[in-house]
């Protein structure tokens, strides 16, 4: 099932070669598969979308449940926790490049192989632009520029398709909530990955308050109650099978107008700090569940 493991000497040689610079890797673009390990989910998503299967990825079961797309081949090895990818295992795998997510600690990884930090969200930049740039930068390091171009083109096409399917939507603005407990909720605002998708498909975001660098904010129900009365709630989680269960678990929420009138759509878990694949997933799910004719209320 696994590729034959490199001997100790080969591993050391590979590290030395990788340490000498990445130009060999770029030249090796013609070779079937670059030896890349992913230390975070966002980077892994874009790697897979570029057609590169990482040697290893942390928390694989959780990735399949919460990130889902693109699907992960069986050959990928488990690397442990996202916060502490296993260094002994990484050393044995001898990758030529490690792709880490922005904000993670990279210094131990850099002792094994060069580290590329994948940052699809950057302060002061539109998420769509930042994601595009991050994708191109990662592809350039792997010599996959052509794949990146076609990935971006496919992304544009998917957004256009979703926009077309949603063009008949006459509902109110959307309130995007990924998690809720008691009378607090995690909502997504103006500088989130989702906002760009909403803009492209012609929908409005009901929540316009300040948000973190990742585009989300935690707010109380009193703030949600003050939103536009025609607001529709969109739940970005698959832990809630349908709107009725959600209400049963959170009786306080029944006081909100959009829940009283059952204007709730349940999507699924999406990696909110992922790149283009996350945006695609959001757009597709939104079109499937919101578009006229699919009045799916869970």
């Amino acid at each position, binding site marked *: 099932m696994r590729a034959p493991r490199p001997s100790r000497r080969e591993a050391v040689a590979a590290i030395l070669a990788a340490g000498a610079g990445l130009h060999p890797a770029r030249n090796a673009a013609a070779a079937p598969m670059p030896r890349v390990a992913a230390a975070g989910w966002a980077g892994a998503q874009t790697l897979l979308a570029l057609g590169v299967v990482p040697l290893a990825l942390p928390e694989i079961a959780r990735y399949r449940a919460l990130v889902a797309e693109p699907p992960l081949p069986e050959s990928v090895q488990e690397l442990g926790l996202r*916060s502490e990818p296993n260094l002994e295992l990484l050393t*044995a795998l001898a990758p030529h490049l490690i792709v880490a997510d922005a904000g993670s600690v990279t210094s131990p990884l850099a002792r094994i192989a060069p580290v590329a930090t994948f940052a699809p969200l950057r302060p002061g930049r539109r998420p769509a632009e930042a994601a595009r740039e991050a994708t191109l930068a990662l592809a350039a390091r792997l010599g996959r520029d052509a794949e990146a171009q076609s990935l971006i083109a496919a992304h544009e096409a998917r957004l256009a398709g979703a926009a077309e399917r949603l063009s008949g939507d006459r509902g109110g603005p959307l309130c995007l909530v990924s998690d809720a407990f008691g009378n*607090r909720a995690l909502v997504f605002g103006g500088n989130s990955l989702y906002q760009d998708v909403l803009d492209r498909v012609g929908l409005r975001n009901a929540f316009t308050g300040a948000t973190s660098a990742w585009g989300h904010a935690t707010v109380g129900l009193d703030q949600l109650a*003050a939103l536009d009365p025609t607001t529709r709630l969109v739940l970005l989680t698959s832990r809630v099978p349908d709107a009725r269960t959600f209400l049963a678990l959170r009786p306080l929420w029944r006081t909100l107008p959009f829940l009283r009138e059952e204007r709730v759509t349940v999507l699924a878990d999406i990696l909110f*700090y992922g790149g283009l694949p996350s945006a695609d997933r959001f757009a597709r799910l939104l079109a499937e569940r919101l578009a006229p004719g699919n009045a799916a209320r869970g």
Partner: protein
Amino acid sequence: MPPVGERPEPRAGWQRPALIVLALALAALALALRDLALRLPPGQWGAALLAPDATDTRQMLVHLTVMPRIAVALLCGAGLGLAGAVCQQVLRNPLAEPTTLGISAGASLALSAATLWAPGLLAYGREGVALAGSFAALLFVFGLAWRRALSPVSLVLAGLIVTLYCGALASALSLFHRDYLIGIYLWGAGFLSQQGWGVAAFLLPRLGVAAFLIALMVRPLTLLGLDDEAARNLGLGLTGARLAALVVAVSLSAAVTSAVGVIGFVGLAAPAIVAIAGARRLRDRLVWAPLCGAALLWLTDGLVLLIPTGYREVPTGAATALLGAPVMLALLPRLRKGVLWRAEPAAAVPRAARPGLVLAAGAGLLALALWGALAFAYGPRGWSWAGLTGIAEMLPWRGPRVAAALAAGAMLAMAGMLLQRMMNNPMASPEVLGVSSGAALGVIVALFLTEAPSRVVQLAAGTAGAFAVLLGILVLGRRDAFSPERLLLAGVATSAAFGAIVAVAMATGDPRVGTLLTWLAGSTYGVDPGEAAGFLAAAAILAGLAPMLARWLDILPLGAATAQAVGLHVPRVRLVVMLAAAVMTAVPTLVVGPLSFVGLMAPHIARLIGLQRALHHLVGAAILGALLLTLADWAGRTIIFPYQMPAGLLATVIGGPYLMWLLRRR
């Protein structure tokens, strides 16, 4: 209600507490009126409270959010103040509040577990789940302390152990299921925002019943403040009275916690403030502590509402800690000796016949453990034993981790030993000094101010935080000969503020929280070879210097008077011991994070083994601490390969039950 008919003795016992409460309440009222005036003309306030016009959004908002929020703040503050006053009386300890008994930790662990494995349970209300968790934790504490008729010291110690243990289990859950627990963090930070009168209606009857029951118990509670001996002579069934009072206080605080999340510090600060202000009799404290708590929380919430809401709405629970800590520190110099505190040394343990032999065996065991940790592991190729020669292959990865665990364990254990001896208090552990919290705070601030702080930035920020706290302690303690009770209170205030900041960080939903969690749980993962070498050298130097304190540490537990009589300059001695403990706490915190359960556990076990002389105790604790963390680090990177569990966390999970068993046996 103020105690109108009471004739206070020599100096009015209620005047100053009343002034403080009045000042707090007036300030809060002014803020609330300002807030209301911005929302609604004064003429409509009555209507908005009693019969709001359902078509008027502004009136409805005031009726459903602004006014219930004030009511909930008052009720929660009063409940926590009352619960804290009762706990401090029953446990005769100024650090006691329901959280000291493991209530919050039990509640939050139960909620996390229910969210993961039985979300259906939450449908019946999280109050029930939180209450069940609180009482389970409390039963554990009682079970541990039962043999000593629930004596104050053993109760507090048991409470601390259960709290740490629940905390460790909860962190283990968050480490592996963080994505599913974000909701718990959103709730757990102590937000008071309301959406209707439901929460106030939930709290009011509970507070009323609790206040009534406590009023019935004033006499036995007063007697509980005396020595066990004196109270027993007066014919009071001690165990029963303690249990009854504690159950009331705990139910009350659990109800508050389950309604609005963790609001720390009010239960600790309100009774302490009124006691320091002169409410010396229990009856006065029971009246003024709830009023003070209510005013304190109302004022804090008013101040929180002044902060313009960014994406990180400030939870009131965090604000109480941040605001309350300086109030507490300012009041400390006024704390009268003996008002709140009685030192109660831990029960005597038979002395080991041959301490030298015990220590030699320990050192041998440690050497074996170090070898095993470097050579024996589960890896990509299954179990492997590298013997002596094959160690070199993985040394770049395992070496720094083993060195860090060894040095951190030894230093924290020595710090704990110093503090337990100096403060003559078995619950003194490195974190009560607040230095580790300061270091951790520095690192968290660095994490949130920069996108990805380098190791150097983290170390610098952590050092700055630790030194800031240390400086504060020095300034505060200097006036009072560094008396243990003040140091403990100052440390607890700092730790409370720290806990609040961590809660805020968790509630942001920031993806980097995972990194923060592993570091908070005591991980050696990020240590590089250079750091490990420097760390080992620092540990060696400190371990070499520490035995010079041995004579002092033999004398200090005998009491300040005795120490003075044999010619010690007590304030200077305390200062030196405290500085040594602070450095030995700060250095490992910077490298492996603030989880220092080892600093509580290792000195205890060393003492229970029978190492009584200070020098033996010190060396024994250092060896045990090193052994414990080395084994924990090895197990943490081996048993769930390729996943890893931070050493500090695993030491707590494994060592906790052993410590509990040791305590129960005695």
